[in-house]
């Protein structure tokens, strides 16, 4: 068993950062965690997966400390941050330049911190850095914290600054996906990837026990999984042409609901509702938990959590769910105003048996029976849409819209319940998005990979449809970050640089000239936005170089769309 030091971890991180090949990354990680001391290993995995929960000291605070130490003016620091797009990295670039400017005014550190610093070596194990040194820094106040951080920066080699600042700010991400880490653990400990995924569904705690449980050998006769959910199987957007060749009767059609994907578990240990973000959401949706108590033990359902209008037999807009999520405890009023249901569409465990390898049509039959036996106002189920010919598809999708669904799911009848996003069996077929032509008014640089590139845009609509009115103004309406290809991004960036009228910190006000077609999934009323509307999933559909700003749409047109939804 070997300890992982800050130094060797740093080497691993730069190794991962300097290669693009997935295979190499997996080899690097799996070599590193083989026979690792579990106390360090748990930290390594938590950090690699970007799951460091605690933010020890904010990036803003680190910036303050750096600025207080230097005579470089604040605006210049801000320009540097805008260029780099990451606080920890900016500091690691600036510190070597400013460290000689002043001598620390007050060296006094508390005794235990003094002790910690006397032991400061990059050969110390990761557990010491994460559990001894960094939490101590966090607990310090004002000047003593400032001095301790400055001392830390001066004590370590410049090359380590980036990593240490990343750990301190808790925003550590290194461009390895969860999938890569899972594959690495599987390779290193001879386990199935799905086993690791299952074991990762419990809360990650960077301690010895968690690491040992995660990496222990497979247990053949596991029966009760406690509260542990199964990894979700995710669908991908469909290209209808690609599946039209197959017989329509191979597929099952379901409505695609716009809610929160959930896995509802009833086992001996109780009832549990997990969201796709692998969070336990029992407290947010108590009525679903109450319903689940009546289900037979050893039942796991896959479905959608929806705010439901019983009278209209339709879901409420997504904003209602967001309101439910916004409250830590749910009041009686909220329960009444915004009741939720669990729309079940799959069963992955029944009578304490793992059903994932059964065919979808058989699983659905089991679910049907369960639904009929356990009628409850919080449990919904929709029977199969009759579908024998691809030509009927569009009509059914239209009906789905009228019934309040956001499109269709097209699922292979003989598909197993897989894990993760595996293409070929489950497809989503959403409605065409709504679109409006809006004018670009602000641009802001992105962060991380998109640093120093204007990728965050604000778009506006006219407040009056009268094109020749003098008082007509553009009102901000949506922000969008995606949808342009690299060439368009480059061209637009050049244009923004030349056509900036004014700067507010990192935000640039640009000439009101460029028109973009913005696509979105829905419109809601909103008090927070200037135009009184909020859109869901806005993104850039097309750059309308053929249009002038005066041709862009106005707010009235957005209100028309609101009426439709």
């Amino acid at each position, binding site marked *: 068993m070997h300890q992982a030091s800050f130094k060797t971890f740093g080497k691993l991180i730069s190794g991962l950062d300097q290669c693009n090949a997935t295979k190499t990354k997996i080899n690097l990680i799996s070599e590193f965690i083989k026979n690792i001391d579990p106390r360090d290993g748990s930290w390594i995995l938590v950090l690699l997966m970007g799951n460091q929960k605690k933010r020890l000291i904010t990036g803003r605070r680190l910036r303050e400390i750096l600025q207080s130490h230097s*005579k470089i*003016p604040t605006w*210049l620091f801000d320009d540097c941050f805008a260029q780099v797009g990451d606080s920890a990295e900016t500091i690691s670039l*600036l510190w070597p*330049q400013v460290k000689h400017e002043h001598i620390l005014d007050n060296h006094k550190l508390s005794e235990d911190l003094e002790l910690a610093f006397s032991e400061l070596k990059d050969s110390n194990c990761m557990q010491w850095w994460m559990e001894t040194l960094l939490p101590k820094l966090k607990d310090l106040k004002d000047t003593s914290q400032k001095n301790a951080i400055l001392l830390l920066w001066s004590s370590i080699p410049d090359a380590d600054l980036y990593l240490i600042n990343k750990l301190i700010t808790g925003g550590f991400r290194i461009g390895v996906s969860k999938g890569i880490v899972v594959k690495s653990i599987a390779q290193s400990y001879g386990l199935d990837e799905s086993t690791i995924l299952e074991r990762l569904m419990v809360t990650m705690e960077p301690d010895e026990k968690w690491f040992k449980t995660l990496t222990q050998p497979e247990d053949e006769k596991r029966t009760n999984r406690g509260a542990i959910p199964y990894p979700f199987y995710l669908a991908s957007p469909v290209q209808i042409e690609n599946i039209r060749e197959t017989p329509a009767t191979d597929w099952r059609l379901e409505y695609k609901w716009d809610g929160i994907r959930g896995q509802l578990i009833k086992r001996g240990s109780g009832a549990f509702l997990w969201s796709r973000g692998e969070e336990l959401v029992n407290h947010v949706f108590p009525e679903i938990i109450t319903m689940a108590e009546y289900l037979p033990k050893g039942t796991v359902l896959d479905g959608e959590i929806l705010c439901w209008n019983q009278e209209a037999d339709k879901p409420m807009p997504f904003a209602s769910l967001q309101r439910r999520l916004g409250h830590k405890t749910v009041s009686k009023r909220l329960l009444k105003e915004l009741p939720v249901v669990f729309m079940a569409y799959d069963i992955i465990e029944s009578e304490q048996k793992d059903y994932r390898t059964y065919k979808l049509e058989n699983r659905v039959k089991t679910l049907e029976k369960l639904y009929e036996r356990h009628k409850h106002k919080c449990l919904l189920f929709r029977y199969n849409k009759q579908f024998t010919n691809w030509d009927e598809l569009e009509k059914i999708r239209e009906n789905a819209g009228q019934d309040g669904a956001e499109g269709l799911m097209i699922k292979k009848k003989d598909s197993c319940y897989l894990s993760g996003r595996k293409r070929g069996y489950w497809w989503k077929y959403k409605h065409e998005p709504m679109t409006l032509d809006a004018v670009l008014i602000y641009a802001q640089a992105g962060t*991380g990979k998109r640093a120093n*590139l204007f990728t965050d845009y604000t778009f506006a609509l006219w407040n009056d449809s009268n094109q020749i009115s003098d008082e007509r103004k553009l009102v901000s309406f949506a922000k969008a970050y995606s949808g342009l290809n690299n060439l368009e991004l480059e061209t637009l960036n050049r244009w923004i640089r030349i056509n900036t009228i004014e700067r507010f910190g990192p935000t640039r006000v640009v000439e009101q000239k460029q028109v973009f077609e913005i696509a979105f999934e829905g419109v809601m009323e909103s008090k927070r936005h200037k135009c009184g509307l909020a859109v869901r999933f806005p993104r850039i559909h097309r750059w309308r170089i053929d249009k002038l700003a005066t041709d862009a749409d106005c707010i009235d047109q957005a209100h028309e769309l609101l009426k439709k939804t």
Partner: protein
Amino acid sequence: MAVLERRTEGLYCPAAEVWIDPSRPVERALITHAHADHARAGSGEYWAVNQSEGVLRQRLGREIKLNAVTYGEILTIGKAKISFHSAGHVLGSAQIRIEVGKEVWLVTGDYKRCHDPSCTPFEIVKCDVIITESTFGLPIYRWKTGHEITKEIHQWWSGESEHPSLLFCYAFGKAQRVLAELKALGINDEILLHGAVETVTRHYREAGIEMAKTCPVSAIERKNPLKGRLIIAPPSAYRSAWMKRFKEPQTAFASGWMTVRGARRRRGYERGFVLSDHADWPGLIQTIKESGAKRVYVTHGQDDVIARYLREVEGIEADSLKVLK
């Protein structure tokens, strides 16, 4: 009357009726160096440093009317005295000094302050008004020596014996600097070059610059997997059809922009070597101060940042070149 003014074609000196690095064809053009954003084809007559003649003629046409000058040589054009002084940017790069009456203006062009075995070192020129570049005008930019970076490049390349190593960098200047540094390190291996790098390298050899042994990639048969070889190519070749010839290469980009991790990740290179032919932040500030200029105009990049810094922190009269009439 100001010594220089801004016109649509570029910086213009009325006393000599010449343009400096004009962006459009003019009658008479003074060229700081042969990079494409400074030297453009179509002008009637050119003045440039003799060492840049080869590259200039290759890029602007064999037939251009070119007056080759030496560093420090004083020309009298119209009412102006004009001289070219080494900028240390690339082979034959110059700062242009213009003296009209009692006033001296200096246009730095692109320049750097650190040692480069492939071109003559930067020369400090005193002036009243300086027009400086500012490509890397933020304090996050501070360079290590080319010697140190080239050692890192060598380590990266020699650590991979099973696959080719593709180093991308600008074909004119950066590539030859790396080759000269490799030679200085005592590397005897033959380095392979992309065609665009090859043509410029020939001009450097003619100018007598000592560089590592080279050979065009095209001269090697396609079946050869080029295991463990270093290949230098321009960034435009990255992810192009040309690159398909190499099996699972490791890739790197040598540029000042590689300081910022996101800039490297966005371009997709595996390694970034921070190596620039422009002045870094300390280099820019030092140069402006050493010039003794009482008035500073800043262009090409972080002009607003440098100008504001000079005004507010250093107390030097400074503006973006945009304000010059």
